[in-house]
Protein backbone atom coordinates (compact mmCIF):
# COMPACT_ATOMS: atom_id res chain seq x y z
CA UNK A 1 0.00 0.00 0.00
CA UNK A 2 1.64 3.16 -1.09
CA UNK A 3 1.69 6.28 0.99
CA UNK A 4 -0.63 8.62 -0.91
CA UNK A 5 -2.63 11.74 -0.15
CA UNK A 6 -5.75 12.61 -2.11
CA UNK A 7 -7.15 16.05 -2.78
CA UNK A 8 -10.62 16.58 -4.26
CA UNK A 9 -10.99 19.20 -7.00
CA UNK A 10 -14.32 20.77 -7.85
CA UNK A 11 -13.41 23.62 -10.15
CA UNK A 12 -16.16 24.69 -12.56
CA UNK A 13 -15.60 23.38 -16.07
CA UNK A 14 -12.66 21.19 -15.06
CA UNK A 15 -12.32 17.57 -16.13
CA UNK A 16 -9.97 16.80 -13.27
CA UNK A 17 -11.71 15.81 -10.04
CA UNK A 18 -8.86 14.48 -7.95
CA UNK A 19 -5.15 15.15 -7.38
CA UNK A 20 -3.14 12.38 -5.73
CA UNK A 21 0.38 12.86 -4.35
CA UNK A 22 2.41 9.68 -3.87
CA UNK A 23 4.55 10.62 -0.87
CA UNK A 24 6.84 7.62 -1.37
CA UNK A 25 7.70 8.84 -4.85
CA UNK A 26 7.86 12.57 -4.02
CA UNK A 27 11.41 13.75 -3.40
CA UNK A 28 10.70 17.45 -2.98
CA UNK A 29 12.27 18.47 -6.30
CA UNK A 30 9.48 21.07 -6.30
CA UNK A 31 9.21 21.39 -10.07
CA UNK A 32 5.42 21.31 -9.63
CA UNK A 33 5.69 24.36 -7.40
CA UNK A 34 7.69 26.15 -10.08
CA UNK A 35 4.87 25.48 -12.55
CA UNK A 36 1.98 26.13 -10.17
CA UNK A 37 2.92 27.71 -6.86
CA UNK A 38 -0.78 28.39 -6.28
CA UNK A 39 -1.49 24.67 -6.02
CA UNK A 40 1.36 23.14 -4.07
CA UNK A 41 3.72 23.65 -1.16
CA UNK A 42 6.35 21.51 0.51
CA UNK A 43 5.88 20.30 4.07
CA UNK A 44 8.71 19.92 6.57
CA UNK A 45 9.32 16.35 5.42
CA UNK A 46 10.16 17.77 2.00
CA UNK A 47 7.02 16.26 0.45
CA UNK A 48 4.52 18.13 -1.66
CA UNK A 49 1.08 18.92 -0.30
CA UNK A 50 -1.80 20.50 -2.21
CA UNK A 51 -2.83 23.79 -0.65
CA UNK A 52 -5.43 24.79 -3.25
CA UNK A 53 -6.77 22.16 -5.65
CA UNK A 54 -9.02 24.59 -7.52
CA UNK A 55 -6.88 27.61 -8.29
CA UNK A 56 -5.47 26.80 -11.73
CA UNK A 57 -6.89 25.53 -15.02
CA UNK A 58 -6.54 21.94 -16.21
CA UNK A 59 -3.71 22.70 -18.63
CA UNK A 60 -1.55 24.19 -15.87
CA UNK A 61 -2.38 21.36 -13.51
CA UNK A 62 -1.39 18.75 -16.10
CA UNK A 63 1.80 20.67 -16.83
CA UNK A 64 2.66 20.70 -13.13
CA UNK A 65 2.18 16.93 -12.91
CA UNK A 66 4.20 16.37 -16.10
CA UNK A 67 7.09 18.40 -14.69
CA UNK A 68 7.60 16.02 -11.76
CA UNK A 69 10.83 14.06 -12.21
CA UNK A 70 9.46 11.10 -10.21
CA UNK A 71 5.85 11.13 -11.51
CA UNK A 72 4.59 11.52 -7.97
CA UNK A 73 1.50 13.52 -8.99
CA UNK A 74 -1.45 11.59 -10.39
CA UNK A 75 -4.56 13.22 -11.83
CA UNK A 76 -8.00 11.60 -12.13
CA UNK A 77 -11.16 12.67 -13.97
CA UNK A 78 -14.74 12.63 -12.67
CA UNK A 79 -15.20 8.98 -13.64
CA UNK A 80 -12.15 8.04 -11.62
CA UNK A 81 -10.06 7.40 -14.73
CA UNK A 82 -6.38 8.30 -14.46
CA UNK A 83 -5.63 11.29 -16.71
CA UNK A 84 -1.91 11.52 -15.85
CA UNK A 85 0.49 9.73 -16.02
CA UNK A 86 -1.12 8.10 -19.06
Amino acid at each position, binding site marked *: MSNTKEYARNKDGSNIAKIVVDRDLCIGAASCIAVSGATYELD*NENKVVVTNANDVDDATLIMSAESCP*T*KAILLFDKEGKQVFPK
Partner: protein
Amino acid sequence: MENYKYLIIGGGAAGTSAAETIRQKDPVGEIAIISDEDHPLYSRVMLSKPNFFLGKIPFNQIWMKGKDWYDTNKIIFIGGRTVTALDTEKKIVTLDDSKQISYEKLLISTGVRTRPWNIPGSDKKGIYSLRTLEDGKAIMEAIKTAKKAVTIGGGFIGFEMADLMKLAGLETTMLLREDYFWQPTLDDKSGKMIEDALSKSGIKIMKNAEVTEVVGGENVEGVMLKDGTKIDCDMIITGIGVVPPNLDWLNVSRAPLGNSEPPKGTFDTSKAGIIANEYLETNIKDVWTAGDIAEYKDLLLEENIQLGNWVNAREQGRIAGLGMVGERTPFKFVSFYTTQGVGISIAFVGDSRPLPDRQIILRGSPETGSYERILVDTKGELVGATMINRTGEMSTISKLIENNVDITTHTTELSDPNFDLKQLLTK
Protein backbone atom coordinates in the same frame (compact mmCIF):
# COMPACT_ATOMS: atom_id res chain seq x y z
CA MET B 1 21.64 19.47 -46.17
CA GLU B 2 18.97 19.01 -43.53
CA ASN B 3 17.47 22.25 -42.32
CA TYR B 4 15.54 22.89 -39.13
CA LYS B 5 13.92 26.09 -38.08
CA TYR B 6 14.78 25.26 -34.48
CA LEU B 7 17.86 23.23 -33.61
CA ILE B 8 18.62 22.21 -30.04
CA ILE B 9 21.96 20.83 -28.90
CA GLY B 10 21.32 18.80 -25.76
CA GLY B 11 18.39 16.49 -25.04
CA GLY B 12 18.07 16.92 -21.28
CA ALA B 13 15.52 18.81 -19.22
CA ALA B 14 16.36 22.25 -20.70
CA GLY B 15 16.47 21.18 -24.36
CA THR B 16 13.33 19.08 -24.15
CA SER B 17 11.40 21.76 -22.30
CA ALA B 18 12.43 24.25 -25.01
CA ALA B 19 11.25 21.89 -27.75
CA GLU B 20 7.95 21.37 -25.96
CA THR B 21 7.42 25.12 -25.57
CA ILE B 22 8.33 25.82 -29.20
CA ARG B 23 5.88 23.19 -30.43
CA GLN B 24 3.07 24.68 -28.35
CA LYS B 25 3.68 28.05 -29.98
CA ASP B 26 4.68 27.01 -33.50
CA PRO B 27 2.79 23.92 -34.72
CA VAL B 28 4.67 23.65 -38.02
CA GLY B 29 8.29 24.85 -37.64
CA GLU B 30 10.77 21.96 -37.89
CA ILE B 31 12.45 21.06 -34.59
CA ALA B 32 15.42 18.76 -34.01
CA ILE B 33 17.26 17.80 -30.82
CA ILE B 34 20.85 16.56 -30.98
CA SER B 35 21.86 14.50 -27.95
CA ASP B 36 25.10 12.72 -27.14
CA GLU B 37 23.03 10.21 -25.20
CA ASP B 38 20.98 7.77 -27.24
CA HIS B 39 17.93 7.94 -24.96
CA PRO B 40 14.79 10.02 -24.94
CA LEU B 41 14.41 12.36 -21.97
CA TYR B 42 14.84 10.59 -18.66
CA SER B 43 14.76 11.77 -15.08
CA ARG B 44 18.30 12.60 -14.10
CA VAL B 45 16.90 13.50 -10.69
CA MET B 46 15.74 9.95 -10.05
CA LEU B 47 19.23 8.54 -10.61
CA SER B 48 20.45 9.44 -7.15
CA LYS B 49 17.28 8.52 -5.26
CA PRO B 50 17.43 5.42 -3.07
CA ASN B 51 13.90 4.25 -3.94
CA PHE B 52 14.89 4.02 -7.58
CA PHE B 53 18.24 2.38 -6.95
CA LEU B 54 16.84 -0.16 -4.59
CA GLY B 55 14.15 -1.16 -7.08
CA LYS B 56 11.24 0.25 -5.07
CA ILE B 57 10.39 2.40 -8.10
CA PRO B 58 10.07 0.42 -11.37
CA PHE B 59 12.95 1.15 -13.74
CA ASN B 60 10.59 2.38 -16.46
CA GLN B 61 9.57 5.31 -14.28
CA ILE B 62 12.88 6.87 -15.34
CA TRP B 63 11.52 7.76 -18.80
CA MET B 64 9.99 11.24 -18.89
CA LYS B 65 9.18 11.14 -22.59
CA GLY B 66 8.55 8.11 -24.78
CA LYS B 67 9.47 7.83 -28.44
CA ASP B 68 5.83 8.47 -29.29
CA TRP B 69 6.03 11.92 -27.71
CA TYR B 70 8.75 12.98 -30.15
CA ASP B 71 6.79 11.50 -33.07
CA THR B 72 3.48 13.07 -32.07
CA ASN B 73 5.09 16.48 -31.65
CA LYS B 74 7.15 16.14 -34.83
CA ILE B 75 10.41 16.61 -32.95
CA ILE B 76 13.34 14.87 -34.65
CA PHE B 77 15.63 13.24 -32.08
CA ILE B 78 19.21 12.76 -33.26
CA GLY B 79 20.63 10.58 -30.49
CA GLY B 80 24.15 9.33 -29.81
CA ARG B 81 25.80 12.14 -31.75
CA THR B 82 28.05 15.00 -30.72
CA VAL B 83 28.64 18.36 -32.35
CA THR B 84 32.12 18.93 -33.77
CA ALA B 85 31.74 22.36 -35.36
CA LEU B 86 29.44 25.34 -35.39
CA ASP B 87 29.45 28.09 -37.98
CA THR B 88 27.28 30.87 -36.60
CA GLU B 89 27.58 33.00 -39.75
CA LYS B 90 26.38 30.32 -42.16
CA LYS B 91 24.24 28.83 -39.36
CA ILE B 92 25.51 25.29 -39.83
CA VAL B 93 26.22 22.62 -37.21
CA THR B 94 28.51 19.70 -38.04
CA LEU B 95 28.13 16.35 -36.24
CA ASP B 96 30.74 13.71 -35.43
CA ASP B 97 29.54 11.62 -38.40
CA SER B 98 30.32 14.64 -40.66
CA LYS B 99 26.65 15.30 -41.25
CA GLN B 100 25.81 19.00 -41.55
CA ILE B 101 22.59 20.58 -40.38
CA SER B 102 21.49 24.15 -40.94
CA TYR B 103 19.28 26.10 -38.56
CA GLU B 104 17.47 29.38 -38.13
CA LYS B 105 17.41 29.45 -34.31
CA LEU B 106 19.85 27.51 -32.16
CA LEU B 107 19.75 26.51 -28.48
CA ILE B 108 22.85 25.24 -26.68
CA SER B 109 21.73 23.19 -23.69
CA THR B 110 24.49 20.62 -23.43
CA GLY B 111 24.47 20.38 -19.65
CA VAL B 112 27.72 19.81 -17.80
CA ARG B 113 29.87 16.81 -16.92
CA THR B 114 31.14 15.43 -13.64
CA ARG B 115 34.52 16.76 -12.62
CA PRO B 116 37.17 14.13 -13.39
CA TRP B 117 39.08 12.77 -10.40
CA ASN B 118 42.73 12.73 -11.25
CA ILE B 119 44.95 11.29 -8.54
CA PRO B 120 47.34 8.33 -8.57
CA GLY B 121 45.29 5.16 -8.99
CA SER B 122 42.08 6.90 -10.04
CA ASP B 123 42.02 4.83 -13.24
CA LYS B 124 41.24 1.62 -11.32
CA LYS B 125 37.98 -0.25 -11.73
CA GLY B 126 35.34 0.46 -9.13
CA ILE B 127 35.35 4.26 -9.25
CA TYR B 128 32.06 5.88 -10.21
CA SER B 129 30.48 9.29 -10.63
CA LEU B 130 26.85 10.01 -11.32
CA ARG B 131 25.54 12.02 -14.23
CA THR B 132 24.07 9.82 -16.92
CA LEU B 133 21.76 6.85 -17.06
CA GLU B 134 24.77 4.65 -17.87
CA ASP B 135 26.54 5.95 -14.74
CA GLY B 136 23.45 5.09 -12.69
CA LYS B 137 23.17 1.59 -14.16
CA ALA B 138 26.85 0.91 -13.45
CA ILE B 139 26.43 1.89 -9.78
CA MET B 140 23.25 -0.19 -9.48
CA GLU B 141 25.19 -3.19 -10.75
CA ALA B 142 28.20 -2.55 -8.53
CA ILE B 143 26.23 -2.37 -5.27
CA LYS B 144 25.02 -5.93 -5.82
CA THR B 145 28.44 -7.31 -4.97
CA ALA B 146 30.37 -4.50 -3.27
CA LYS B 147 30.81 -4.60 0.50
CA LYS B 148 32.53 -1.34 1.40
CA ALA B 149 31.99 2.04 -0.23
CA VAL B 150 33.75 5.37 0.07
CA THR B 151 32.05 8.57 -1.08
CA ILE B 152 34.14 11.62 -1.89
CA GLY B 153 32.72 15.11 -1.51
CA GLY B 154 30.21 16.85 0.69
CA GLY B 155 27.54 18.14 -1.69
CA PHE B 156 24.15 16.80 -2.71
CA ILE B 157 25.57 13.85 -4.63
CA GLY B 158 27.83 12.85 -1.74
CA PHE B 159 24.91 13.09 0.67
CA GLU B 160 22.49 11.13 -1.48
CA MET B 161 24.99 8.48 -2.56
CA ALA B 162 26.22 7.84 0.99
CA ASP B 163 22.60 7.35 2.05
CA LEU B 164 22.06 5.01 -0.88
CA MET B 165 25.20 2.94 -0.23
CA LYS B 166 24.22 2.49 3.39
CA LEU B 167 20.64 1.53 2.48
CA ALA B 168 22.06 -0.98 0.01
CA GLY B 169 23.84 -2.63 2.93
CA LEU B 170 27.38 -1.42 2.27
CA GLU B 171 29.75 -0.30 4.97
CA THR B 172 29.98 3.36 4.01
CA THR B 173 32.59 6.01 4.70
CA MET B 174 32.11 9.61 3.59
CA LEU B 175 35.24 11.66 3.04
CA LEU B 176 35.05 15.46 3.30
CA ARG B 177 37.92 17.81 2.60
CA GLU B 178 36.27 20.55 4.67
CA ASP B 179 35.91 21.06 8.43
CA TYR B 180 32.21 20.23 8.25
CA PHE B 181 29.52 19.23 5.82
CA TRP B 182 28.75 21.76 3.09
CA GLN B 183 31.25 24.33 4.29
CA PRO B 184 31.07 27.26 3.67
CA THR B 185 27.54 27.53 2.22
CA LEU B 186 26.08 26.12 5.43
CA ASP B 187 27.17 27.16 8.89
CA ASP B 188 28.81 24.65 11.20
CA LYS B 189 25.58 24.08 13.15
CA SER B 190 23.63 23.08 10.02
CA GLY B 191 26.57 20.97 8.90
CA LYS B 192 26.66 19.19 12.25
CA MET B 193 22.92 18.41 12.06
CA ILE B 194 23.53 16.68 8.74
CA GLU B 195 26.63 14.90 10.02
CA ASP B 196 24.73 13.69 13.09
CA ALA B 197 21.94 12.31 10.90
CA LEU B 198 24.46 10.58 8.62
CA SER B 199 26.34 9.12 11.59
CA LYS B 200 23.11 7.96 13.23
CA SER B 201 22.25 6.02 10.08
CA GLY B 202 25.59 4.24 10.33
CA ILE B 203 27.66 6.23 7.83
CA LYS B 204 31.19 6.97 8.98
CA ILE B 205 32.28 10.56 8.28
CA MET B 206 35.89 11.64 8.04
CA LYS B 207 36.52 15.38 7.82
CA ASN B 208 39.59 17.26 6.59
CA ALA B 209 40.25 14.11 4.63
CA GLU B 210 42.20 14.39 1.41
CA VAL B 211 42.74 11.31 -0.68
CA THR B 212 46.28 11.09 -2.07
CA GLU B 213 46.07 7.71 -3.77
CA VAL B 214 43.69 4.96 -4.73
CA VAL B 215 45.26 1.62 -3.85
CA GLY B 216 44.66 -1.84 -5.27
CA GLY B 217 45.47 -3.89 -8.34
CA GLU B 218 43.18 -3.68 -11.33
CA ASN B 219 40.30 -3.04 -8.96
CA VAL B 220 39.94 -0.55 -6.15
CA GLU B 221 40.97 -1.95 -2.79
CA GLY B 222 41.11 1.24 -0.75
CA VAL B 223 42.13 4.86 -0.51
CA MET B 224 45.14 6.41 1.16
CA LEU B 225 44.66 9.73 2.96
CA LYS B 226 47.16 12.54 3.31
CA ASP B 227 47.64 11.77 7.01
CA GLY B 228 48.60 8.18 6.18
CA THR B 229 45.27 6.57 7.06
CA LYS B 230 44.20 3.79 4.74
CA ILE B 231 40.51 3.03 4.26
CA ASP B 232 39.56 -0.28 2.69
CA CYS B 233 36.79 -0.21 0.08
CA ASP B 234 35.76 -1.97 -3.09
CA MET B 235 33.89 0.93 -4.63
CA ILE B 236 34.27 4.72 -4.67
CA ILE B 237 31.72 7.33 -5.69
CA THR B 238 32.94 10.83 -6.39
CA GLY B 239 30.74 13.89 -6.05
CA ILE B 240 33.30 16.64 -6.49
CA GLY B 241 31.49 19.09 -8.72
CA VAL B 242 30.99 19.64 -12.42
CA VAL B 243 32.84 21.04 -15.40
CA PRO B 244 31.66 22.18 -18.84
CA PRO B 245 31.64 19.52 -21.57
CA ASN B 246 34.08 19.78 -24.45
CA LEU B 247 33.06 23.02 -26.16
CA ASP B 248 35.88 23.21 -28.68
CA TRP B 249 33.26 23.39 -31.41
CA LEU B 250 32.09 26.79 -30.16
CA ASN B 251 34.72 28.32 -32.46
CA VAL B 252 36.77 28.73 -29.30
CA SER B 253 40.02 28.38 -31.19
CA ARG B 254 39.81 32.16 -31.24
CA ALA B 255 38.15 32.59 -27.84
CA PRO B 256 39.26 30.23 -25.11
CA LEU B 257 36.82 29.65 -22.26
CA GLY B 258 36.93 32.57 -19.90
CA ASN B 259 38.09 35.15 -22.45
CA SER B 260 36.62 38.36 -21.08
CA GLU B 261 36.32 40.15 -24.39
CA PRO B 262 35.54 37.64 -27.10
CA PRO B 263 36.68 38.57 -30.60
CA LYS B 264 33.82 39.46 -32.95
CA GLY B 265 31.75 36.45 -33.91
CA THR B 266 32.89 34.25 -31.03
CA PHE B 267 30.98 33.26 -27.94
CA ASP B 268 31.22 35.10 -24.67
CA THR B 269 32.08 32.39 -22.15
CA SER B 270 33.26 32.00 -18.60
CA LYS B 271 35.45 29.17 -17.38
CA ALA B 272 32.31 27.35 -16.32
CA GLY B 273 29.77 28.05 -19.01
CA ILE B 274 28.28 30.17 -21.78
CA ILE B 275 27.30 33.72 -20.89
CA ALA B 276 23.69 34.76 -21.48
CA ASN B 277 21.55 37.76 -20.69
CA GLU B 278 18.27 37.58 -18.77
CA TYR B 279 16.51 36.40 -21.95
CA LEU B 280 19.01 33.50 -22.16
CA GLU B 281 20.33 34.96 -25.40
CA THR B 282 24.04 34.55 -26.00
CA ASN B 283 26.09 37.36 -27.56
CA ILE B 284 25.72 35.61 -30.93
CA LYS B 285 22.60 36.37 -32.97
CA ASP B 286 19.93 33.65 -33.00
CA VAL B 287 21.74 31.50 -30.43
CA TRP B 288 20.30 30.87 -26.97
CA THR B 289 21.63 28.85 -24.05
CA ALA B 290 19.80 27.21 -21.14
CA GLY B 291 20.25 24.77 -18.29
CA ASP B 292 23.41 23.87 -16.38
CA ILE B 293 25.76 25.26 -19.05
CA ALA B 294 24.17 28.75 -19.05
CA GLU B 295 25.74 31.47 -16.96
CA TYR B 296 22.81 33.82 -17.08
CA LYS B 297 22.01 37.26 -15.78
CA ASP B 298 19.90 36.70 -12.68
CA LEU B 299 17.45 39.58 -12.40
CA LEU B 300 16.85 39.06 -8.68
CA LEU B 301 20.54 39.00 -7.79
CA GLU B 302 21.56 41.42 -10.55
CA GLU B 303 24.60 39.35 -11.44
CA ASN B 304 25.58 36.45 -13.67
CA ILE B 305 25.18 33.04 -12.08
CA GLN B 306 25.12 29.40 -13.07
CA LEU B 307 22.80 26.97 -11.35
CA GLY B 308 22.38 23.33 -12.16
CA ASN B 309 19.22 21.53 -11.26
CA TRP B 310 16.14 20.01 -12.85
CA VAL B 311 13.68 22.79 -12.11
CA ASN B 312 16.02 25.54 -13.23
CA ALA B 313 16.79 23.67 -16.46
CA ARG B 314 13.11 23.13 -17.25
CA GLU B 315 12.21 26.75 -16.61
CA GLN B 316 15.16 28.06 -18.60
CA GLY B 317 14.31 25.75 -21.49
CA ARG B 318 10.81 27.19 -21.51
CA ILE B 319 12.07 30.80 -21.50
CA ALA B 320 14.62 30.11 -24.26
CA GLY B 321 11.90 28.35 -26.28
CA LEU B 322 9.66 31.40 -25.98
CA GLY B 323 12.51 33.61 -27.17
CA MET B 324 13.14 31.33 -30.13
CA VAL B 325 9.55 31.71 -31.34
CA GLY B 326 9.73 35.47 -30.93
CA GLU B 327 8.04 35.80 -27.55
CA ARG B 328 11.02 37.29 -25.76
CA THR B 329 10.51 36.79 -22.01
CA PRO B 330 12.95 37.48 -19.16
CA PHE B 331 13.94 34.63 -16.87
CA LYS B 332 12.99 35.68 -13.37
CA PHE B 333 12.95 32.81 -11.00
CA VAL B 334 13.92 32.15 -7.41
CA SER B 335 16.05 29.04 -7.66
CA PHE B 336 15.87 26.33 -5.06
CA TYR B 337 17.18 22.87 -4.43
CA THR B 338 16.08 20.33 -1.89
CA THR B 339 17.03 16.83 -0.86
CA GLN B 340 16.24 14.40 1.88
CA GLY B 341 17.77 11.28 3.31
CA VAL B 342 18.89 9.70 6.57
CA GLY B 343 15.83 11.23 8.23
CA ILE B 344 16.65 14.83 7.43
CA SER B 345 15.57 17.34 4.77
CA ILE B 346 17.84 20.04 3.39
CA ALA B 347 16.91 23.00 1.21
CA PHE B 348 18.68 25.93 -0.36
CA VAL B 349 16.59 28.83 -1.66
CA GLY B 350 17.68 31.83 -3.68
CA ASP B 351 21.22 33.02 -3.15
CA SER B 352 22.45 31.24 -0.05
CA ARG B 353 26.07 32.36 -0.19
CA PRO B 354 27.12 33.76 3.21
CA LEU B 355 28.89 36.84 1.81
CA PRO B 356 30.61 38.97 4.47
CA ASP B 357 28.22 41.93 4.19
CA ARG B 358 25.10 39.83 4.58
CA GLN B 359 23.05 39.61 7.72
CA ILE B 360 21.99 36.12 8.77
CA ILE B 361 18.81 35.65 10.79
CA LEU B 362 18.39 32.30 12.52
CA ARG B 363 15.05 30.51 12.90
CA GLY B 364 14.75 27.48 15.12
CA SER B 365 17.77 25.63 16.44
CA PRO B 366 19.71 22.41 15.97
CA GLU B 367 18.47 21.30 19.41
CA THR B 368 14.85 21.39 18.23
CA GLY B 369 15.82 19.58 15.01
CA SER B 370 14.51 22.43 12.87
CA TYR B 371 16.94 25.13 11.82
CA GLU B 372 16.90 27.82 9.17
CA ARG B 373 19.21 30.65 8.18
CA ILE B 374 17.72 33.63 6.37
CA LEU B 375 20.17 35.76 4.43
CA VAL B 376 19.54 39.48 4.08
CA ASP B 377 21.51 41.81 1.82
CA THR B 378 22.69 45.33 2.54
CA LYS B 379 19.44 46.78 1.15
CA GLY B 380 17.48 44.94 3.84
CA GLU B 381 16.00 42.50 1.33
CA LEU B 382 15.81 38.77 1.84
CA VAL B 383 18.03 37.07 -0.77
CA GLY B 384 18.22 33.46 0.28
CA ALA B 385 17.87 30.81 2.96
CA THR B 386 19.17 27.43 4.02
CA MET B 387 16.80 25.05 5.79
CA ILE B 388 17.20 21.88 7.77
CA ASN B 389 13.84 20.16 8.33
CA ARG B 390 12.01 23.39 7.51
CA THR B 391 11.14 22.91 3.83
CA GLY B 392 7.56 23.88 4.70
CA GLU B 393 8.64 27.50 4.54
CA MET B 394 10.33 27.25 1.16
CA SER B 395 7.47 28.59 -0.96
CA THR B 396 6.91 31.56 1.32
CA ILE B 397 10.62 32.41 1.42
CA SER B 398 10.71 32.22 -2.40
CA LYS B 399 7.83 34.68 -2.64
CA LEU B 400 9.47 37.04 -0.13
CA ILE B 401 12.63 37.02 -2.26
CA GLU B 402 10.72 37.47 -5.52
CA ASN B 403 8.69 40.39 -4.16
CA ASN B 404 11.79 42.15 -2.78
CA VAL B 405 10.07 42.50 0.58
CA ASP B 406 11.94 44.87 2.90
CA ILE B 407 12.30 42.95 6.13
CA THR B 408 14.50 45.36 8.08
CA THR B 409 11.72 46.07 10.57
CA HIS B 410 10.79 42.41 10.96
CA THR B 411 14.03 40.77 12.05
CA THR B 412 12.67 39.97 15.53
CA GLU B 413 9.62 38.27 14.07
CA LEU B 414 11.77 36.36 11.59
CA SER B 415 13.92 34.94 14.35
CA ASP B 416 10.82 33.58 16.10
CA PRO B 417 10.43 30.06 14.65
CA ASN B 418 6.70 30.09 15.40
CA PHE B 419 6.03 33.34 13.54
CA ASP B 420 4.10 32.64 10.33
CA LEU B 421 6.22 34.08 7.51
CA LYS B 422 3.15 34.33 5.28
CA GLN B 423 2.09 37.37 7.28
CA LEU B 424 4.97 39.31 5.70
CA LEU B 425 3.62 38.65 2.22
CA THR B 426 0.56 40.76 2.81
CA LYS B 427 2.47 43.78 4.14
